[in-house]
């Protein structure tokens, strides 16, 4: 049993919903065209295909494109030593996807982190609170339109934030330059 065979089984079950498996450096990714079906696909992947371990859930902000967000599920079968990746898009207007806690309980904190950092809500989550920032923080800091230095906020007796002084930064190191003076962290414009 290989990851590709698992991917083809998944595709045989759901047909048009799942695009052709993409292989990159021996890792298989599957794109699910309708994010509303994610719970059914994940349920099948765990109960029938033995992908019993949810390694992580991550999110991507494709800023300026539509749909804006991509949610990525990293699945693993511990017994068969196979990894499979599921991707699905969520539009900014919807910003909501079904929770998979009823399938893998470990999804609880992964989904809370994505809600905290990216602002995508998970319907059916029993405890959808922020996990790193505090309740009442008004922004989603890993979105592309959020500045690296941050924005000023104030929640009395809880927390406040101020923009960090970047001094023209962020400072970037260039790996391939010959001498250490050229490699060291400097303010570098992307055009250079």
């Amino acid at each position: 049993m290989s990851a590709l065979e698992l991917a083809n089984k998944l595709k045989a079950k759901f047909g048009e919903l799942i695009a052709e498996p993409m292989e990159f450096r021996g890792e298989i990714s599957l794109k699910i065209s309708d994010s509303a079906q994610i719970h059914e696909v994940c349920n099948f992947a765990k109960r029938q295909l033995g992908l019993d371990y949810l390694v992580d859930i991550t999110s991507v902000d494709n800023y300026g494109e539509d749909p804006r967000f991509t949610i990525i599920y990293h699945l693993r079968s511990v017994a068969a030593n196979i990894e499979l990746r599921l991707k699905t898009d969520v539009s900014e207007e919807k910003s909501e996807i079904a929770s998979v806690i009823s399938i893998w309980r470990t999804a609880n904190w992964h989904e809370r982190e994505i809600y905290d950092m990216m602002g995508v809500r998970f319907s059916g989550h029993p405890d959808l609170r922020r996990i790193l920032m505090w309740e009442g923080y008004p922004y989603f800091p890993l979105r592309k339109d959020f500045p690296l230095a941050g924005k000023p906020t104030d929640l009395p007796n809880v927390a406040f934030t101020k923009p960090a002084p970047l001094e023209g930064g962020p400072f970037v190191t260039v790996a391939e330059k010959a001498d250490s003076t050229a490699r060291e962290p400097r303010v570098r414009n992307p055009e250079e």
Partner: protein
Amino acid sequence: MPTHTDFAYDSKIEGDVVVTRVDAALNWFRKNSVWPMPMGLACCAIELMAAGASRFDISRFGSEVMRFSPRQSDCMIVAGTVTYKMAASLKRIYDQMAEPKWVIAMGACASTGGMYRSYAVVQGVDTIVPVDIYICGCPPRPEAVLDALMKLQNKISTEPVLKDLNIFTKADRGTVKS
């Protein structure tokens, strides 16, 4: 000729006399038992633990009594990255410490935010509490912590303790000094 006085001093029993000023004596007591409040928040805390362990031995300077209660400690050593989420707790712990109290900002993060030019990190703990000594380094070596402690001792020994203190003299007895 009086045969006795109200105050007797027997040098055979009590030892020799050292003459000093009251505030110098108080400062000497204070600076040789600075009890730290180890506010360990990141990797600097590991170096702070090393400073407290046998190889570097912070007890040579009277600071081996690490107190995890703010009510029993004199000097808060902020060792590590202070996030905005932690800032309120840190301020609250500092406010609970009894006077006199001092703060050492240990390492780049506590002093300036360090490499974290970020939405989540306080850019220097001196924005929320008054800092007496800054230690550079990322993280600083335990020797640097001990050096900061000695500098803090020098600072304590020059503080005018009695300036704001009300001293009752014999003539003041029975009156209320404001």
